[in-house]
């Protein structure tokens, strides 16, 4: 029974406790809820604060309260308080505040023991002994509500529990207030925004929109509520807007720029961003009125188009009105454009023209060259209709830009691509060069876009050119031919008179008058000869300068040994030197490299400079120096002559000027010597100059670049054919050797020349055969098999070079000496054909005689053959062949041995095995040696040599 009553008592107690507690909580709750309502109605912080403390007083007794909020400097400051003693107080964050801010209200029984409070003023400490700190969650800043009491130990653990219940309510109220403020601010922002903002459903109907829609489109709010976005879109933009909505339905954002109709019927461009929220079934739209921008862009575009069209039209007009024909192709060679001039030149109708066939031949070849080397400029001549001639100049169309190699070719970015990588992308970077930038992989690249060809009708130029050529050749021929006769016969007469007639007359005549007459005649003949020679020299100089200026002069460029050239120049001026009594010193640097040049022209320069030095030096000496300076060979002629005034130095290279026009007893020249020297040196890419001091002497110098690029195209002949040619020649030589008289074939279309030569050659007791043209010459050559052939070049029907070519191709004349006598400068071509020597008319008899004598003698000697072949077996069989015939054959298996033999011995024929020569670079070395033109160079192949790949 006791237990039961005990349990009953406990139950009653529990019940009573529960009811009491429930009552307390209910009262507390009701009071809090009532105050909470007021709290939620608070519009500003002040009202909120007092509502808060009012609410708190329901459950907790306190005297004062204040709110602390953490500022950006991490210090708590009072933002609201019920007592002025807390105004503008500063609180530092220590452990109590840290615990409170973690959500744990804390009561203090004695604030003097709390670090946060210890920093406060004595006044505060006088007024406050107990405090309860309650955290408030505002969502923005750390905030603590502090309630205080002047009595110590006022706040209990129970108060802390009540504060725990209060804190979330208060925080909620604060957050609600903040949220309301945010919403108000957002609403304000929403409405004030110039951008159109709104919320629509997936059908495009407005759920919410700001004032900007009305402002921009002119509708009232009511009207907009009843409209769908799609209804407002311009009909042409509706499909695009529909696509955007489709995108939105797939939960993807959309951006669109399109026109929307205004209330007044006009359209405005809106740039819209739409974001879907599928869960809400809504889309959020922000739009901006970009009508002005779009219109401005359209205007700009229109203007730009007009400008572009105008520019293109102008360009079209320019291109169509070009005097030259213009053809433009793309990179693949397909014709993109041709102007009317182009069509006219080709006699084509622009409307119907199919340029395909036209672009075959030279034009196609030109385009192909330009495609392969677009940076170069290529030229070609082609035949135009109506016997006109065109010159086409083509080059690639390149668009220069900077490009990132890796990015363009999908490579991983790195510092510099390798050559292999560059080669792998030829189309992108074929014409590129790497430029140093802070960003790696930058190339300045020229994108090849196509080919442009300019076609010019050069028929007139050609005709003029032809006229010039003909004029020069005519003048040369018309002046030189009679002059050759005049001078030649004058010399002949002079010679006859001096050698035969005058001695007899002088021996027999007693009459002083007769003797005087003889002397006069002698003197007159000397004058005639010297004046004739001077006229010849003058004509030569004039023609030379004319040819140089018109570009008609043929240059025979080959490696030149300057030392040898100087020796020859000195030999040529020896007589002058002896007459002057001057000494000529030579100072030539050792191991000078060869220079490329026309030997005869350089000789002309050297002779002119040496002659001038002799002419203008009365006493003293002349020094000829040759030095290698950097990339040049500098030749200087220094004299101790009269010198040149400083003010006249610039004139020395002008035509028809002799320095110092006053009459003196200085020797005179044509006034063209130095200008001709200047033309010659400048053609060699050199420079010429003079240094002088009046009364002390002068130094004339010229510098030639060290640049040896020669190509020597030597025909390759099969070995069997070569051996057969040599054998046939050997038979003819045997026959020739058995003759009593030498047989010389004279070939010249001028009868007087032939007569002159015949007279000269008869002295040599030679049998002369004459031919006035090429075909006759060939016929006579076949029949008579002459020991020597003298050839003119300029002849009707067949030129002398052609005769020489045909003769050399024929076995019997393989090694027959051919001497060319001509007014034309075709030396290179002649030598290339195997001509023994080449002379320009008019020439000295002595020279000719020496050449003839030498050639005849040489023609009779056994052949001295040098063979270069790296294969001993092949070489042996060739050697046996020649040795059997009695020829002197030397075999070299290395080109060093070969070079050495050439330098040390005189040879007639140099036979080079093609493969061996190419492999060893022998040909290149050989050119540097300047083989005498009399040496026949033959390059042969054997049947066993590998054929070149097609």
């Amino acid at each position, binding site marked *: 029974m*006791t237990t039961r009553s005990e349990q009953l008592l406990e139950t009653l107690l529990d019940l009573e*406790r529960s009811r009491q507690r429930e009552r307390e909580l209910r009262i507390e709750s009701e009071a809090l809820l009532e105050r909470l309502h007021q709290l939620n109605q608070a519009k500003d912080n002040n009202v909120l604060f007092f509502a808060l403390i009012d609410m708190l007083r329901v459950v907790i007794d306190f005297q004062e309260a204040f709110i602390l909020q953490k500022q950006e400097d991490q210090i708590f400051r009072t933002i609201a308080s019920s007592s002025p003693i807390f105004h503008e107080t500063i609180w530092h964050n220590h452990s109590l505040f840290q615990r409170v801010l973690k959500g744990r209200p804390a009561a203090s029984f004695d604030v003097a023991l709390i670090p946060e409070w210890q920093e406060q003023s004595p006044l505060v400490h006088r007024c406050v002994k107990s405090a309860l700190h309650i955290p408030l969650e505002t969502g923005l800043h750390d905030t603590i509500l502090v309630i205080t009491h002047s009595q110590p130990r006022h706040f209990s653990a129970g108060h802390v529990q009540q504060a725990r219940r209060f804190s979330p309510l208060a925080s909620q109220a604060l957050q609600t207030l903040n949220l309301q403020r945010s919403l108000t601010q957002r609403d304000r922002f929403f409405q004030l925004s110039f951008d159109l903002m709104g919320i629509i459903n997936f059908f495009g109907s407005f759920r919410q929109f700001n004032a900007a829609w009305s402002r921009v489109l002119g509708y009232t709010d009511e009207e907009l509520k009843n409209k769908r976005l799609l209804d407002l879109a311009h009909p042409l933009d509706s499909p695009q807007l529909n696509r955007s909505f489709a995108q939105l339905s797939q939960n993807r954002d959309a951006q669109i720029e399109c026109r929307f109709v205004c209330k007044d019927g006009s359209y405005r461009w809106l740039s819209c961003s739409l974001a879907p929220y599928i869960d809400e079934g809504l889309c959020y739209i922000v739009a901006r009125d970009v009508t002005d921008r779009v219109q401005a862009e359209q205007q700009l575009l229109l203007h730009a188009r007009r400008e572009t069209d105008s520019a293109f039209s102008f360009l079209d007009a320019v291109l169509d009105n070009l005097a030259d024909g213009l053809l433009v192709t793309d990179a693949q060679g397909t014709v993109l454009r041709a102007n009317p001039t182009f069509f006219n030149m080709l006699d084509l109708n622009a409307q119907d023209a199919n340029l395909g066939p036209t672009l075959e031949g030279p034009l196609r070849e030109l385009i192909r060259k330009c495609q392969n080397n677009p940076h170069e400029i290529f030229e070609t001549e082609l035949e135009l209709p109506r016997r006109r001639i065109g010159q086409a100049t083509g080059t690639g169309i390149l668009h220069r830009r900077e490009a990132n190699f890796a990015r363009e070719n999908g490579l991983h970015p790195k510092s510099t691509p390798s050559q292999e990588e560059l080669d792998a992308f030829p189309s992108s970077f074929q014409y590129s060069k790497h430029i140093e930038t802070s960003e790696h992989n930058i190339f300045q690249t020229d994108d090849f876009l196509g080919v442009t060809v300019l076609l010019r009708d050069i028929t007139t130029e050609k005709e003029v050119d032809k006229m010039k050529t003909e004029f020069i050749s005519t003048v040369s021929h018309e002046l030189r031919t009679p002059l050759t006769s005049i001078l030649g016969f004058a010399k002949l007469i002079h010679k006859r008179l001096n050698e035969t007639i005058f001695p007899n007359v002088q021996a027999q005549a007693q009459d002083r008058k007769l003797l005087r007459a003889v002397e006069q005649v002698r003197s007159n003949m000397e004058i005639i000869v010297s004046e004739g020679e001077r006229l010849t020299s003058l004509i030569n100089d004039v023609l030379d300068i004319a040819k140089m200026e018109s570009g008609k002069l043929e240059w025979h460029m080959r490696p030149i040994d300057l030392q040898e050239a100087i020796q020859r120049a000195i030999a040529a001026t020896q007589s002058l030197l002896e007459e002057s009594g001057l000494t000529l010193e030579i100072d030539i640097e050792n191991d000078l490299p060869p220079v490329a040049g026309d030997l005869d022209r350089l000789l002309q320069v050297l002779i002119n400079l040496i002659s001038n030095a002799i002419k203008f030096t009365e006493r003293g000496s002349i020094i000829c120096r040759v030095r290698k300076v950097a990339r040049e060979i500098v030749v200087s002629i220094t004299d101790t002559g009269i010198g040149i005034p400083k003010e006249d130095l610039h004139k020395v290279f002008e035509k028809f000027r002799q320095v110092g026009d006053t009459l003196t007893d200085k020797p005179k020249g044509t006034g063209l010597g130095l200008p001709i020297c200047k033309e010659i040196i400048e053609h060699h890419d050199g420079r010429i100059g003079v240094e002088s001091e009046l009364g002390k002497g002068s130094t004339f110098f010229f510098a030639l670049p060290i640049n040896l690029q020669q190509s020597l195209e030597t025909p390759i002949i099969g070995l069997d054919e070569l051996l057969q040619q040599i054998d046939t020649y050997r038979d003819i030589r045997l026959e020739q050797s058995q003759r009593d008289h030498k047989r010389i074939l004279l070939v010249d279309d001028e009868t007087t020349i032939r007569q002159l030569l015949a007279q000269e050659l008869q002295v040599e007791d030679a049998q002369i055969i004459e031919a006035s043209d090429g075909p006759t010459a060939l016929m006579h050559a076949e029949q008579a098999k002459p020991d020597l052939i003298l050839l003119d070049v300029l002849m009707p029907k067949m030129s002398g070079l052609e005769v020489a070519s045909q003769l050399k191709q024929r076995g019997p004349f393989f090694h027959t000496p051919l001497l060319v006598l001509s007014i034309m400068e075709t030396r290179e071509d002649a030598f290339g054909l195997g001509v023994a020597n080449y002379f320009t008319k008019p020439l000295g008899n002595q020279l000719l005689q020496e050449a003839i004598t030498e050639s005849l003698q040489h023609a009779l000697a056994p052949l001295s053959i040098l063979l270069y072949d790296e294969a001993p077996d092949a070489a042996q069989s060739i050697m046996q062949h020649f040795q059997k015939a009695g020829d002197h054959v030397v075999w070299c298996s290395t080109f060093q041995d070969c070079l050495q033999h050439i330098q040390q011995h005189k040879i007639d024929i140099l036979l080079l095995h093609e493969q061996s020569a190419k492999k060893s670079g022998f040909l290149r070395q050989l050119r540097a040696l300047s083989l005498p033109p009399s040496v026949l160079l033959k390059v042969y192949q054997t049947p066993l040599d590998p054929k070149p790949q097609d």
Partner: protein
Amino acid sequence: MKIATSWASASDQTSIEKAYSALEQQLGGTPNYLYLSCSVEDSIEEISRALKKLAPHIPLHGSTSCLGSMTEQGVHNQDGRGIAIFGILDPVGGYGVGAAQIQHDAKTAAKEAVEAALAMADCPGEVPSMVWMTSAPGHEEAAIAGIAEILGDDVPVTGGSSADNTVSGLWKQCVQDRIYTNAVVLTVLFPSTEVIFAFHSGYEPTEQKGVVTKMGTLDNEGNLDESALEGRMVLEIDHRPAMEVYNEWCGGILDDVVSTGGNILTRTTLYPLGRVAGHVGKIPYFQLSHPDSATERGAFTAFSNICVGDELVLMHGTVESLITRAGRVAASTLDTHGIDHKDIAGALVVYCAGCMLTVRERLGEVVDGLKQALPQTPFLGIYTFGEQGCFLGGENRHGNLMISVLLFRKSETTF
């Protein structure tokens, strides 16, 4: 907040390590507070040293309990020994332990202990949610007064006096590894969650009542001072020898000691004397005193202070009610606060050693009762020589034969 308990059968390092490790494992981390309960047969020195090694920076509060302890795992009482550890994992909360030897008076010691505990918790000047106290028996009221002087009257004080196995004064207390025999040791709790407490007597009042008309105290020389107004020796009730009155109220069960004196502790467990501590509505609730001995002069002593003028009411209880009381108090506390047991992280239970001795053979049923009220909830029960608690009216009192229950909530209170 998480709470766990563990127990050990021996005081050596290994056993304590094992027990601590089990505690940590249950908590899932290092605890923020430890309470140690053991008997005087266990070496509280060794245990506290071991725990300090394992958890050097964790506040440790310890006290001896009569004949062991009880947890949700059962009664830990083997040959007079029983070690149990109570741990709280509450990183957001604050806990501090302080102790002061009772030299001159317990009030001063309590004040010192409060200040020391607040300092350890790093909460100087702050009001804790609760004070958990274990002091040497005899000065509990003074200690409560000292706490109130610092913290105020409204801070709940709960706890139990240290006990030994034979009422021989062998009880001990500890803070960290410092051991005391006569100290006030307390913990100030600043838990991150709410702590609910209940302080119940569990006896029903009878019609027998009287007013204390004379109290006595003994000075250091054992001389009786009859002028005391408060003390633990009741000389007269209604101007009659107190023992005589009490014996009459108890039906003469103490006839043999009325005039000769003697120990009456175990015979009066079911007959404590109550004083009205307050009312819940109109229903009074009582603070109990347990007469423990009779004097030759016809007086009796109790384990709590009584004042001249106090109306003493004979209370009556039964063994069954003692057994079921702990569980009923726990359940009643939950009901009163409208809390589900699932929301309870753990509990501390203060069970009077006198009651424990009375129901000793059936302590397992006490544990079962608690487990029924707090299923799957860790708890530690200690057997004390006096209980302290806060009545519903907010009164902090020291009593005897009382039940004091502390329930720690798992999560924050929601309104």
